[in-house]
């Protein structure tokens, strides 16, 4: 009786799909949906006030000083994204290539490069905060020790260097990830292809440009998109190293910090505003979702199937 079998099968599939769907709905879809709803109301502390339409969005985008804070945070996210794209993903690709070509000590370096990725962000943040300490920090101690006193700066305390220092730490910690993904991509390239290419040219550069780079395109897509999402959701590292205010005077303020401070209030400075905070969250979410989706489609087209 095929019909009964089919029902059993349907039941079975339903039983398997419903629990994860329910979890997704409760813990992902519902919070996003409710944040969306919150954004359209006025909030007095925790009390939901009246429906205000797009007022909260207008506040964070066009009223001063929120507008310039939003802009400033957004600009910083863009800087973070492009810097990390070059430093983290660029260097990651070069490292992956070096590891793939099995330069001396590759086995050791494979582990060494990936090691910081395993560390918790909290540990990395505290560690580097100590390293950058203006008085006792090893970074400044070393500079003073080798006579480069002018380089002994309060790295996290001046607007010119604070964001750069955070970007550096992030790259230090995460470089192993793009490296690993690129390396995996490179290892999938069939040796016949490479052997054939080697018969044509001796140049490593041509090899990279014509063979390796096009064939690791799927890895590049993954790494780029994840970096994009990560850069615009950037929160833990700045929170631990410079605090919720994006100290000093907002030079390291990013959308994640700005959203958190607005929605939940900064204990030592501000009040909480769920309305504006939710509006920010919705804007961040929409921006990331739209750009990431668009970009994924674009990058996918570029990929070559082996």
């Amino acid at each position, binding site marked *: 009786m095929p019909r009964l079998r089919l029902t059993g099968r349907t039941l079975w599939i339903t039983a398997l799909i419903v629990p994860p769907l329910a979890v997704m709905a409760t813990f992902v879809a519902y919070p996003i949906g409710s944040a969306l709803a919150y954004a359209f109301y006025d909030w007095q*502390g*925790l009390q939901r006030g009246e429906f205000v339409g797009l007022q909260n969005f207008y506040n964070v985008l066009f009223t001063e000083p929120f507008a310039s804070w939003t802009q400033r945070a957004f600009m910083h996210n863009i800087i973070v994204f492009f810097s990390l794209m070059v430093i983290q993903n660029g260097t990651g690709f070069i490292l992956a290539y070096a590891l793939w070509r099995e330069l001396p000590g590759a086995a050791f370096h494979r582990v060494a490069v990936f090691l910081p990725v395993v560390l918790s962000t909290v540990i990395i943040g505290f560690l580097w905060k100590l390293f*950058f300490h*203006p008085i006792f920090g090893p970074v*400044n101690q070393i500079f003073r020790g080798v006579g480069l006193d002018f380089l002994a700066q309060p790295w*996290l305390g*001046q607007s010119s260097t604070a964001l750069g220092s955070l970007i550096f730490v992030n790259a230090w910690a995460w470089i192993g990830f793009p490296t690993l993904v690129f390396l995996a991509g490179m290892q999938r390239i069939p040796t016949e292809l490479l052997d054939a290419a080697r018969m044509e040219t001796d140049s490593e550069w041509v090899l990279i440009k014509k063979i390796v780079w096009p064939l690791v395109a799927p890895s590049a897509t993954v790494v780029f998109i994840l970096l994009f999402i990560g850069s615009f959701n950037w929160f833990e590292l700045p929170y631990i190293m410079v605090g919720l*205010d994006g100290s000093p005077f907002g030079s390291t303020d990013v959308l994640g910090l700005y959203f958190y401070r607005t929605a939940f209030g900064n204990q030592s400075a*501000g009040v909480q505003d769920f309305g504006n905070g939710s509006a920010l969250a919705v804007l961040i979410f929409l921006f990331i979702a739209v750009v990431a989706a668009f970009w994924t489609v674009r990058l996918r087209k570029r990929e070559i199937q082996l």
Partner: protein
Amino acid sequence: MKKYLVRSAALLGAVSMALPAFAQELSFWSWRQEDREQYEQFIADFEADNPDITISLETIEPQNYNTILSTALAGDSGPDIMMVRAYGAFETVAEAGYLMPLDEETVPGLADMPKPALEAETLRSDGKIYAVPFASQTMLVIYNKDIFDQLGLEEPETWDELLEVSQAIEDAGMYAFANGTGTAWQNETIVSALGSSIIGEDFYNDLMAGETDFTDPRFVEALEALVEISEYFPDGFTGLDYASAQQLFASGMAGMFAGGSFEIANFMSQNPDLDLGVFPAPVKEEGDQHLVGLFFDGGYAGNAQTEHPEAVQKFLSYLASQEFGQQFANSLGNISPIPGVEFEDPLLQEVAELNQNSIPYIMLVHFRYQEPSGSVLIQSEVQEMLAGGKTPEEAAQAVTEGIATYYEPFQQ
């Protein structure tokens, strides 16, 4: 089966109805993780006198306390009794109607509390008190007496004397001040700790009367003084965070720390050998009044939805009693606002005396109700000013403009 269900439901109902009569269990939330032991003791004292009430204490990380509390209250899983903050951060919780209104009848201790303390826990919209205030904090300068004695220095009274003292400590190879501006809120504390006497009571009164704003020369002068004294902060102080600044002072490497009286207990626990003294912000001209900055930290509130309102009121009354205030002062080293409390510790006694001449810690007390709060503004503006990015006038201007977006008296 059905019978069984009915029976067990009936049993459950009976138990839940009978329970309150046997023991009233109250939950109590606090953000003072470091004071857990002392609070357990306070609770034990209370339970000894009230055997029918048991209280379980839960401590929560301070940075996220308000968020966690707010979420719990909104989800009907809040505690029966809780610490709440003061002023703006208090209002965000109180305004939603989750807290039990208190008065002198339910909590007799409130009758004698000083007015500014009660105001910190009063909702401006309905004028009702929602929490028993627990500690006042004073902004002043804490100094290391050993270093002062060793160098033959005296507590500076005037700004010039402060500069001399600072120079002398620096000449002796130590840091004059341990303060750093890397942590944003430290920029607000130093304005009050070092500048209150220059800012002065007249400015404060004019400000409250809506007759002046922060571009007033009296306020700008305090900012200028701050720029001047920051010469004596450690090298690279813009990158020195709060915890490091505390360590510098606690380890005896620096002579002075401009900050809150809440630091004293902290310093003493880090280094019990420290011999500390305090002095109020120095004055510009001899003969001017010495002032400290004063605010109230928070209070104990009851949950409006609690199942045991009377037990909650009983416990709150205990927390408002002189007996508790005395314990609180002695074991936690904090200044209780409850009248008649005597301080064993001479340093606390001195702080309590300095409190007689004070102006409020302005931004927290009056401008932390709406964004951009005065605190947010002054923290980032002073941080930028001390880093050399802005002049005191520009900083004062920016603070005023930020507040003017919602505060009418500044809009003219």
